[in-house]
């Protein structure tokens, strides 16, 4: 049975490797110092989608991302790894959205895509770590959800069987299709780029990217419509202006502070037997250990 799969992916700043230059002197974040990457758990979700496609010939994998126009990079990356096509949902009006306004916007785009059996996404994005958008989309679409998925065991005939990884164990559940599935980082890693697909799709570009491309790329794009990455705006997905962007976000950021910890007066020791023995004796004497 062929399946139409949508994978939700986000381009995120790499917050895992925040170096010293990531914070400016005034305490604000230097976004330019953080590389933009494919949100890690969205790659786990993509792998689950590609496995379903492998097992169910005729299936399609569509990437949906919301963000700046440059988020088309995420779509190209997914296509190199085996996805069929992608859509960038981008619009100034969508900026400043919290998770609820984001999920509404994405749900509208999913409705526009229309024909889907499974919506997959990472459990959470590393820039916010909220894990909210998946379930919020499920609710907006009136679909069941399966979160913390580690492996899709089978899908077809109107249902899907999934193993979930919970805090203290595992659970195997069966859900009807269509449904929303969010995938854990403990799931299988995503396959690498396929060299042939890279050759074929390296000129794939979104509408805004096509503005300044080389002559070669322009010819390729004209000759191969599949290289066009769709770019959708808020109006195109029929989003209610009151429910998107900053205005549609119930949560507001009241204040942002740089994190400062009070430094202590530390005692410095070397990797020296006598000093370490002295420390151990002291900790035993004051009943910290022993």
């Amino acid at each position, binding site marked *: 049975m062929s399946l139409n799969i949508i994978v939700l992916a986000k381009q995120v700043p790499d917050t895992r490797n925040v170096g010293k230059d990531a914070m400016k002197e005034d305490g604000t974040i230097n976004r330019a110092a953080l590389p933009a990457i494919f949100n890690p758990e969205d790659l786990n979700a993509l792998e689950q989608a590609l496995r379903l496609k492998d097992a169910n010939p005729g299936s399609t994998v569509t990437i949906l991302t919301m963000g700046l126009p440059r988020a088309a990079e995420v779509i190209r990356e997914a296509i190199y790894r085996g996805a069929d096509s992608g859509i960038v949902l981008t619009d100034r009006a969508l900026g400043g959205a919290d998770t609820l306004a984001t999920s509404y916007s994405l749900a509208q785009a999913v409705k526009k895509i229309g024909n889907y059996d499974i919506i997959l996404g990472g459990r959470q994005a590393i820039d916010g770590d909220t894990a909210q958008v998946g*379930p919020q989309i499920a609710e907006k679409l009136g679909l069941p*959800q399966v979160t913390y998925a580690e492996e899709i065991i089978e899908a077809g005939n109107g249902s899907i069987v999934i193993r979930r990884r919970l805090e203290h164990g595992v659970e195997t*559940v069966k859900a009807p299709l269509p449904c929303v599935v969010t995938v854990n980082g403990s799931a299988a890693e995503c396959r690498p780029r396929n060299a042939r697909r890279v050759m074929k799709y390296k000129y794939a570009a979104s509408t805004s990217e096509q503005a300044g491309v080389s002559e070669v790329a322009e010819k390729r794009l004209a000759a191969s419509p599949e290289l066009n990455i769709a770019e959708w705006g808020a109006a195109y997905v029929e989003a209610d202006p009151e429910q998107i962007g900053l205005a549609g976000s119930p949560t507001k950021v009241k204040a942002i502070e740089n994190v400062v910890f009070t430094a202590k007066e530390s005692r410095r020791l070397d990797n020296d037997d006598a000093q370490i023995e002295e420390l151990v004796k002291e900790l035993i004497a004051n009943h910290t250990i022993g």
Partner: protein
Amino acid sequence: MQPIQSYTTEAMAEKNNLIVYCEYDEGRIADVSLELLTKGRVLADRLGVKLEAVVLGDKLEGIEKQIFPYGADTVYKIEDKRLFPYTSNPHAGALIKLFREIEPQICLMGATCIGRDLGPRVSSCLHSGLTADCTALEIGDHKDAKTGKEYKDLLYQIRPAFGGNIVATIVNPECRPQMATVREGVMKKEVYNADHKGQVVDLKASDYVEDADFVVEIIDRHIEKSKVNIKNSPIIVAGGYGVGSKENFQLLFDLADTLGAEVGASRAAVDAGYIEHERQIGQTGVTVRPKLYIACGISGQIQHIAGMQESSIIISINNDPNAPINAIADYVITGNMEDVVPKLIKYYKKNSK
């Protein structure tokens, strides 16, 4: 499309209490829920409202006895054998219906696999704001910078953002309930009054859940009581990316065995696959307050420090004398963890008898 169905504070003067969703597993209320009741009691007193609790499950007889000592004034119970184990739709559907009736102004949930699955669904349907993984909750006023409109007594939802490098205070000025999730161990659990009694409200399950909600079927479930008990361990030996390998972590287990400690880890060590996630300490893991914390090869990303800075004594073992964690350590041992840890074991064994 879901219409906006939020309600505003003006419309619910009599109702707007603070409610805690209590997680229930085989006859026990989860610790994180009791921690939230403890915090909820303080916030409710500050607001001058009632503290309420809601619990859904299969065998709830007498369950309120576990909840009342933490200060709840009302316990709503919805009992149906299909409500345990937890699945998303029936729990979300019941809360949505209940919240439309009792219109809480604040709802708190554990930032657990359940709370993080349930909270977003409820908030999405009620069009209310939800803040995940709060590390502090306070009550305060807010003035909208754009409109100039002033709001009294909002819930300040304080949480780390951007990988823990900043802390943001989030408010939900217009929409109710103001929802927040908090990880286990972040708030302290304290009995309010062992004899405190409140009202039990038994709700009829058939009024709150529909057969059609039970769409996800649990085929198989293996829940193991966690063998790791970092949160309550008085001594923690924690390793970071600097430990370098899964094999080197064995050294930390050796030291932990010697001292009667638990082994913890930073997110970087967990992400690198050196050790399992349940040992992760920090904003995205467990918050700990042991009497001794030995940090081995941990550079000290803010998100880690936030989860262990309240430890009584901190020892940092690191070959970088300028590792950020050293600033909050009581003792800094500059050297390779592979050399220093065996010495700690050796001299403890020598001197402890």
